[in-house]
């Protein structure tokens, strides 16, 4: 049996790249270690794009990624994609969870603490998104501290643009990285993200299988 395409998820970064040397099939990276999770970033951007009728483009959009940015492949891929599309990305994370190598892709200087976070929150942007990453507990010495300083709450969302959206890649720890009530708020597009996951991945399969020949 010869596969035309492999979808690979692997704990080691770079495993899908190694596979491209071993097979002629197209490879879709479904997450390798902490390095990249491209389809999640694509569906995040697609969800954002389709949330606004008459969407003009990603230029001028400000995105804040809250959480353990250093250890999150979703955050890393989102930084890569949104900056490529012209958005401005700000990682909001504890100082010791800074993305050291991936951070080079981000033009915005990262904010460090909750107080500076306020001053740097995407306030007067045209539109902005706010995305939190999973595994928040691992980047902070205590969960209570994370909750106090980095939890995305309705109060903190008041600092953002009124049209700002809240995204989350899941699985979601309610009342840890995101206030439970906010997750059910109309500003939260988390369920639409899940729904968009299917057509985005269908499009990836289509592009790589049909488009390339």
């Amino acid at each position, binding site marked *: 049996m010869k596969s035309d395409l492999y979808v*690979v998820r*692997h704990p080691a970064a770079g495993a899908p790249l190694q596979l491209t040397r071993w097979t002629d099939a197209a490879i879709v*990276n*479904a997450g390798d270690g902490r390095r990249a999770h491209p389809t999640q970033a694509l569906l995040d951007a697609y969800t954002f794009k389709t949330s606004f009728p008459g969407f003009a483009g990603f230029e001028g959009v400000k995105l804040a990624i809250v959480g353990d940015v250093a250890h999150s492949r979703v955050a890393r891929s989102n930084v890569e994609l949104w900056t490529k599309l012209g958005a401005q990305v700000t990682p909001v994370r504890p*100082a010791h969870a800074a993305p050291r190598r991936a951070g080079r892709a981000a033009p915005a200087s990262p904010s460090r603490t909750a107080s500076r976070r306020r001053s740097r929150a995407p306030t007067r942007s045209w539109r902005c998104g706010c995305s939190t990453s999973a595994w928040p507990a691992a*980047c902070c010495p205590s969960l209570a501290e994370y909750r106090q300083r980095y939890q995305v709450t309705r109060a903190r969302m008041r600092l953002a643009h009124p049209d700002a959206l809240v995204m989350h890649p899941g699985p979601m720890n309610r009342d840890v990285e995101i206030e439970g009530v906010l997750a059910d708020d109309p500003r939260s597009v988390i369920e639409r993200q899940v729904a968009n996951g299917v057509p985005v991945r269908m499009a990836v399969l289509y592009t*790589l299988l049909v488009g390339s020949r």
Partner: protein
Amino acid sequence: VTAAAPGAPARGAAGPAAGSPPTKHPRHLLDLADWTTEQVHALFDTTDVMAQVMTRTIKKVPALQGFTVGHAVLRGLHAHPAQLRARRARAVRRRHLLRRRRQQRQQGRVAQGHAARRSTR
């Protein structure tokens, strides 16, 4: 490994994105750094079509008939509790390092030797 339903190979048949502007097609999706902005936008256009397919009663894309897709989900992806503990401990260590460095800066001290090398990290 799961295989797609075998069917008559209809490769090259007109697909949903047949009308989209021609872009150089990417070979793999490993990393978004390898994709151009045009390729990403073309993918979003294809996604619009696929989202429309999902609203149909028969959710099928004939152009994909006959292709085989393998899923390789290798286990052990989620961090082991020991890894999480180590990560948390690393966070504490790094916080102490940053605080120490800040204090030294305030005191006008310049790190030397090992400490200097560490502070360049």
